[in-house]
């Protein structure tokens, strides 16, 4: 079974600094996907970035990058030049096969990291 571990319940970071949110995972699958979602206080889940297990290059999306270390089974999210609007809950997630194998795989989430950006 897949398992996602986020060891940082909360983080406080000064505005404009870079921040790394940790995520480790465990799976016996050879093919899988790793995702990061942002959940502001309003509650919606916002997709940030994706990394496929066979992707050789680390994914980047604007200020977000994913530090993928396959051998260590880690997929840390790096946010550069943090902004006040980055304050939110951040979830790391991994795709997990459906029982039926029909349709796209469901996601298994970690427990999240609450990031607070300090002015």
């Amino acid at each position, binding site marked *: 079974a897949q398992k996602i571990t986020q060891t940082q319940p909360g983080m406080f970071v000064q505005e404009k600094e870079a921040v790394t949110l940790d995520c480790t995972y465990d799976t016996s699958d050879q093919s899988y996907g790793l995702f990061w979602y942002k959940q502001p206080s309003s509650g*919606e889940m916002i997709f940030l970035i*994706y990394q496929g297990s066979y992707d050789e290059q680390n994914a980047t999306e604007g200020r977000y990058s994913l530090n993928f270390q396959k051998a260590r089974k880690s997929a840390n999210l790096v946010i550069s030049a943090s902004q006040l609007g980055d304050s939110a809950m951040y979830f790391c997630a991994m795709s997990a096969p459906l029982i039926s194998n029909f*349709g*796209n795989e469901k*996601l298994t989430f970690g427990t999240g990291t609450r990031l607070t950006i300090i002015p």
Partner: protein
Amino acid sequence: AAGVIQSPRHLIKEKRETATLKCYPIPRHDTVYWYQQGPGQDPQFLISFYEKMQSDKGSIPDRFSAQQFSDYHSELNMSSLELGDSALYFCASSSTRGQGFGELFFGEGSRLTVL
């Protein structure tokens, strides 16, 4: 671009009552998922549908049922509500077609409060 639409956004019910949540996936998306997120918790997978057929089932109580209709919208029915059912319920959709990686697009969630 059209997103996943969930209704109602907020719902207040008494214990032992019934609630129905609706989800309208992104057009042409063929997979729908339901997740439950309790206060301070991570989202937990409940159930999914592919082309209107149930494709997987997670930690969904027997009191809950769900289905996907011919127009691809889905409904989550919850009966004999308990205090512990108070949560944010997300619907998400994705497409197996195209060249994407199967990203799940989430709705804004339906917040259920059971009193």
